[in-house]
């Protein structure tokens, strides 16, 4: 009972308000701000300016940080890149003529670069693996692969690298790099491979 009368009262008051706004004075377009509201507006303006400034500062800081991070990452990448380059130079294969184990003159530069890297990184130890193509005798190729690995080692040692930093292995013709039965494949398979045993982190160029 009580709630019904309350609803009625609300309904009546709503009708009265509607009637009042529809007829009589139109609503004021620009109500003149009183002193209180002007102050509030000014405060709000100031607040927004402050907020904007803080925001800009935050953004600037973030940007600075981002740039800083980027610079750091870039320099790390550069470091890694140079280390990667060094690693690639170190791992660059050298190749041999058929049934030969002497170092070819066109491979001496590659070995000289390895000498520089080994000198710049005294902790670095490497392993040389000698490989042959499929044309020779299966068993003789184990001896020939050994000779090829020794040839490269002797070159490095004769250029000042301590022999104890270099291990050698022969793979004979058991691990061809390229499958195929033509001179293109064979010439790629007659090779020495170079791998890092230890001391290979953060390699320096020189």
């Amino acid at each position, binding site marked *: 009972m009580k709630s019904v009368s309350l609803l009625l009262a609300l309904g009546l008051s709503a009708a009265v308000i509607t009637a009042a706004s529809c007829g009589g004075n139109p609503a004021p377009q620009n109500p003149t701000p009183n002193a209180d509201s002007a102050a509030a507006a000014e405060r709000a303006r100031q607040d927004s300016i402050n907020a904007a400034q803080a925001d800009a500062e935050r953004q600037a800081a973030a940007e600075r940080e981002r740039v800083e991070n980027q610079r750091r990452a870039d320099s790390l990448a550069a470091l890694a890149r140079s280390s990667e380059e060094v690693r690639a130079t170190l791992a660059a294969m050298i190749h041999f003529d058929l049934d030969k184990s002497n170092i070819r003159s066109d491979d001496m530069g590659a070995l000289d670069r390895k000498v520089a890297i080994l000198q710049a990184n005294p902790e670095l130890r490497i392993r040389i693996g000698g490989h042959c193509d499929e*044309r020779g*005798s299966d068993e*003789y190729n184990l001896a020939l692969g050994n000779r090829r690995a020794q040839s490269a080692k002797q070159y490095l040692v004769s250029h000042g690298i301590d022999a104890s930093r270099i291990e050698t292995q022969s*793979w004979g013709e058991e691990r061809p790099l390229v499958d195929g039965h033509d001179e293109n494949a064979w010439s790629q398979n007659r090779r020495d491979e170079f791998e890092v045993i230890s001391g290979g982190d953060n390699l320096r160029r020189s």
Partner: protein
Amino acid sequence: MRSVICFAALLLAVGPSGRPAIGQDTSTIDRGVRIGIIYRAGVRPGLVMLPRTGMGLDSVRAIVARDLDYSDRFEVITLPGGDSIRLATPSAAPRGTGTRRSGTGTAATGGAQSGGLNYPLYQALGADFALDITVAGDTTVATLHDIASAGVRRAVRVKLPRPGDPDFRQAVHRLADQALQAALGTPGIAATRILFVKEGKVYQIDQDGVDQRLVSSTDRQAMSPAWGADGRHFAYMEFQAGKGWLYLQEMVTGKRIAVSTTGSALDFTPAFSPDGQTLAFSRATEEGTDLYTINIKNNCCLRRLTVGRFSDNLSPTFSPDGQRIAFVSTRPGLPQIYVMAADGTDQQLFAPFDYGVTGSSNAPEWSPDGQSVAFHRDVAGTLQVFVLDVRTRTVRQLTSVGRNEDPTWAPDSRHLAFVSDRSGYRQLWIIDLDTGRIRPLLQQSGARLPAWSPRLSEAPSTTP
């Protein structure tokens, strides 16, 4: 089957009565019977396998016939299935009956029992021997008839394992060898096997190209199997991470024992001394590759035979008297075949070559009769099998088709197994040096480094 019956009937027809059955006084042989075409009298005796059927006999006969054929010591005269033989011997038959002990009407079917056989018939076929394989109870009887003397040369009685038994084929091979021994007085090579490497594993296969079995008992890459002189075990090399270890393995049990060496080097190409006491091998170190021996009876006493310094020495092979070792040395610049005393002294060139002309020579193997060393040599960029005559020190080239390498001697010193790509892919072939006949051992690619066994005696009873 029909032709066999037909053939038996024909034999019956030309039995003791001597009455012409079909045709007149000349023998008419249908196509498919190889007679007078390949066979040359006085070069190889003709041998005919008498047709028989019976439990398990088909495979026994087939295996024996192939073994005798592969011995390359006979002209095996086949009486093929789809063909019939029409034969009449009006003049020979009476003579034949006279020489037969008790001429019966069942010459072909009852030969083993009666010893009677229509010898003139087989003589007309070009046969010097006839082999008859029959079964009596659990015993298989191989009766070898000597056609010229019209009698039984020898009857071999054996109890064969059942077909499918792992020892069955070798037992049949031994029977073939006994028949060959009875006919020619020389031992055969039927009961032998060949070890080879494929995809890093060691396999064995009977010399007739059947019954291939994996013998590697490890997953490491294996190379260079080599038989012990007793045929009971073999040596080989396990290859891993650029290092090589030598092992001995028992054929029957598969049990393997490491050969005590330093283990840090690359040891390869093991070779047994004939007395089985010593293993010679190659070792690659920072100094190069050199030859060593080790006492495998006591697993001790490593001994260095060569000091190459600037050359490599490898691939040893003992002479059958154990006194000498042939090997490969790069001292002339390219690998060539050298020889030395078994203690490493008196090293000298073995197989002659021309400086700057002759290509690399490798993989020597001394023949079991001591007279030859087989090896391969680079000829115009590809490998060919050669044989060195030890006495005259002359070499002759055996192969010329495709690439041919890694020869290994059969115990008869007249057959060699080798790797060849003559059929388009690398697999194992066998050549008979006397006739020049070449046959494929396998029909699969990738096989290499073969090693032919000595004659394999009966496997020692493996008591469980």
